[in-house]
């Protein structure tokens, strides 16, 4: 029906298809005796585009999966993937968008202590890992996401995190202290530029100041 692909493409296709877990291009290459498999992988991505299954890259690892638009057909009665608590989903999002991040930093954003089990759930799911320690007093453990996290949520890399660019641009991923300092500096500058408006700076002016921010 279609043209027969070349032998390397066939070999990469078969290897990836038979693999029990996502594979890096290096692992595929090693398995196939050192061939350069990247072009073959891209050819496969193109070939499967629009079909019922797809070749995708998630965090540097490749795998076959069913097409996303067929979810309604495939979602089985089988137990829906474990429901995460609100605390866990928020914590996961904070780790993903801020990584690497310490527990204290997570708590600073959420405004509550993190229960022991919340991080455990994420670690157990394999979505989060300990990524070392921060070299500050107390050397707190810092957390980051894993390739499994990317695979589970269908992200090629962290750059694909929904809204990441907008959040960055809006400064919403910066610590409160940094943002505050920046705002103060900006406010001072605008005050200087616009002359002496500070004489009548009261509670009501908060809103107007926010507008300028």
């Amino acid at each position: 029906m279609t043209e027969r692909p070349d032998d390397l493409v066939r070999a990469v296709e078969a290897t990836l298809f038979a693999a029990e877990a996502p594979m890096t291009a290096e692992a595929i290459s090693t398995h196939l005796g050192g061939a350069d498999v990247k072009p073959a992988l891209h050819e496969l991505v193109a070939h499967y585009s629009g079909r019922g299954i797809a070749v995708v890259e998630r965090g540097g690892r490749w795998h076959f999966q069913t097409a996303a638009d067929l979810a309604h057909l495939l979602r089985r009665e089988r137990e829906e993937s474990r429901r995460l608590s609100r605390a866990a989903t928020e914590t996961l999002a904070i780790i993903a968008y801020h990584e690497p991040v310490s527990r204290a930093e997570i708590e600073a954003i959420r405004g509550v202590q993190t229960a022991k089990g919340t991080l455990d759930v994420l670690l157990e799911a394999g979505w989060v890992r300990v990524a070392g320690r921060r070299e500050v007093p107390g050397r707190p453990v810092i957390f980051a996401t894993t390739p499994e996290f990317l695979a589970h949520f269908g992200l090629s890399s962290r750059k694909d995190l929904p809204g990441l660019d907008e959040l960055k641009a809006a400064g919403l991923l910066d610590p409160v202290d940094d943002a505050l300092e920046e705002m103060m500096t900006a406010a001072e500058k605008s005050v200087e530029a616009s002359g002496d408006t500070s004489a009548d700076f009261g509670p009501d002016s908060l809103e107007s100041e926010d507008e300028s921010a």
Partner: protein
Amino acid sequence: MNQDLIANEETVASEDWAGPASAPSENEALYLELDGWEGPLDLLLDLARRQKVDLRRISILSLVDQYLTYIERAEALRLELAADYLVMAAWLAYLKSSLMLPREVQEEPSAEELAMRLQLRLQRLAAMRDAAARLMGRDRLGRDVFLRGAPEGLKVDRKNRWQSEWFDLVQAYGQVKARTAPVVHMVRDRMVMTLDSALSRVSSMLGVTLDWMELREFLPPHADPRLRKSALASSFVAALELARMGKAELAQDEVFGPLRLRRAAA
């Protein structure tokens, strides 16, 4: 007291994570469901969202009022409030009064700065809450998209390619032979003073004097050093033997001190 009403970090509210924020809300008709909040910041965020304006344009003063009203009503109903909600209420009351004060009277940090800080925190929490919702709404592996149900699996059989060198082989054999070769011990002929000759020499010398004499004085003079060692050992044993027979007395003043002997008084 109804323990369920205590907002206790996040052990509660895990079931309904869509949370009260999405519940129908008449602005003023606050319902008292503290177990639905994940701490005071969460409650504040929900109240702020009810203002239905951009979080950056939120009125901190009315937010503070709403929060304090909320807490007052909870207290009126004698609901047990977790400490952190009360701490936040106290802090917000302070913030409110500071915001009312003329600016010149304010201390550092200014009330505006505190208000702004709260606003920034609310924005950040809101951003992460939205991000979490968007993340959870993605096509998730095992829920929306699936891996192959029954992969054959890739197996790698390890095969060892053993390495050894000619020299290792020969050296190993040499060491085996050396290790297990029968060993013959040769004892060299050496000059010794027998116990018998020491016994006769010491007892005859003891007969000459009644004074204490050191053991060394009984040794043959100008002896070969190797013979001297043997003579010392033999003479010592001879002295012990004579003492045992009651023919001599032994004395030593200190450990390792000179050993003296003399003829036993008859």
